């Protein structure tokens, strides 16, 4: 009973809370980093160096009036944020933050579950996330959200293809769909897939930016054009849900990238013996570190790069990334067959 229900329940609670906390501080981090990039200070008022700023934001969002536009499709309007939030959180079920640890005399694996189609699970669940955006745009019965949602969904679908293709090539390397299996295969092969699949890595990173509607692919939220994107009409808690969902997605992408390309919880250069002293650091720290590096990259890119034009975005997706991904996949398959 404990094994079957209690421990997973605990894991889920921990992971969810950790995620939400991470998300909130992710926001603060972004604001700070961008501020520094623009030689500003960023939020400084709430708490020392504004460390309590997220708390204030959360309270504000919870307390705000929750407006539903007239002539809006009521319950779809309500359903949309949920539909975009749930997949973002559900994905965490298969992300391995680390291998077993010993707590209270129990061996506890640092992941909620490990299903043998984990990667497929990730892909499919994230693919469901697009509904939130589309429905939000549709149901708020206003032209800018509609345009934004159409843009967003087109963008998501386009870049999903490229990303999935890169994932396939990674699966070709590892020979399994299970996330944990992929990490262990990297351990056994003694190299991070980022080094033997650099093309896939780069494509995945770009695609991840697009998937999460981050700069320079943040057209669905292009304030200058769409007055804020598909959630223009939203406010209060439902807006907060969209907000959380976006950042949660960022964390998901970075965690998946870490798992697939940077060897998950493995220490750097797992096959190099004289670096074994790094093993004293527990694996989940490595994982968090790598994910953090990714998140920082996200913010950095946003602070640096200008926004794409829509046709440029589509051309990049369809005429550059997808062909490259296909070529990479074919190449990988050929090499693997040749080596086998």
């Amino acid at each position, binding site marked *: 009973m404990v094994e079957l229900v209690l421990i997973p329940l605990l894991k889920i609670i921990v992971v969810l809370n950790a995620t939400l906390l991470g998300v909130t501080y992710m926001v603060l981090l972004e604001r700070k980093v961008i501020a520094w990039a623009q030689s500003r200070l960023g939020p400084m008022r709430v708490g020392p160096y504004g460390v309590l700023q997220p708390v204030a934001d959360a309270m504000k969002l919870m307390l705000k009036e929750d407006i539903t536009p007239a002539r809006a*499709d009521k319950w*779809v309007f309500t*359903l949309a944020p949920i539909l975009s939030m749930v997949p973002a959180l559900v994905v965490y079920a298969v992300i391995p933050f680390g291998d077993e640890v010993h707590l209270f005399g129990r061996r506890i694996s640092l992941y909620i579950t490990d*299903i*043998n*189609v984990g990667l*497929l*699970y990730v*892909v*499919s*669940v994230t*693919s*469901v996330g*697009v*509904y939130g955006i*589309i*429905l939000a745009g*549709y*149901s708020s019965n206003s032209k800018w959200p*509609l345009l934004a949602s*159409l843009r967003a*969904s087109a963008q998501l*679908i386009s870049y*999903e293809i490229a990303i999935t293709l890169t994932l396939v090539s990674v699966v070709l390397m590892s020979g399994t*769909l299970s996330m944990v299996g992929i990490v262990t295969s990297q351990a056994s092969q003694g190299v991070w897939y980022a080094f033997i699949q650099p093309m896939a890595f780069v494509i995945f990173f770009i695609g991840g930016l697009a998937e999460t509607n981050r700069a320079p692919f943040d057209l669905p939220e292009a304030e200058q054009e769409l007055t804020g994107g598909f959630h223009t009409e939203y406010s209060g808690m439902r807006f907060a849900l969209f907000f959380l969902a976006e950042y949660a997605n960022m964390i998901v992408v970075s965690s998946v990238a870490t798992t697939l390309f940077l060897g998950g919880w493995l220490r750097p250069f797992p096959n190099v013996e004289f670096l074994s002293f790094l093993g004293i650091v527990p694996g989940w720290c490595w994982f968090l570190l790598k994910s953090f590096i990714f998140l920082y990259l996200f913010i950095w890119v946003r602070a640096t790069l200008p926004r794409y034009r829509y046709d440029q975005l589509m051309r990049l997706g369809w005429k550059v990334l997808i062909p490259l991904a296909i070529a990479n996949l074919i190449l990988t398959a050929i090499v693997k067959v040749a080596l086998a």
Partner: protein
Amino acid sequence: MAEAIAFYVLAACILGFAVLVVTAKNPVHSVVFLVLDFLCVAALYVTLGAEFVAAIQVLVYAGGIVVLYLFVVMLVNVKRPPEAFRAGGRHATLGLALAGAVLVEAAAIAVWSRLSPAAPASAAQTVPVSGNTEQVGWLLYTSYLVPFEVASMLLLVAMVGAIVLARKES
């Protein structure tokens, strides 16, 4: 026990959402219900131990096809509701009755054959189901290679055809 609970809950969701899909006035609503219905079906697959099919169900149906439907519904913003015009010579109620009758009959057959001790489904143990993704892939790429290729060709042709159809005549 838990299996039974899962089955009944999921079956109830599936049928309910299906009814909603069919009856919803607003096409967008029925699309949403369709998504939910497919998700439930996927869950049912999981309970049947077919994770791969479940994932594909979500990926292809929920993630792909239904998005397509959603787009079309948004593109086709009809001036007058489609239900306005009603053609004669289309006996919807008769069709409905027939459908019900077929359901009843088929159910009767099923239940009867269940009650009557027919030959128990002999478990033709051709491929053991364990971590079935590999086996499914194996089957797809060995004994069902030709149908697989045909299906891929079909998809390609369908893609081209859809593009040609939907392109605006300039």
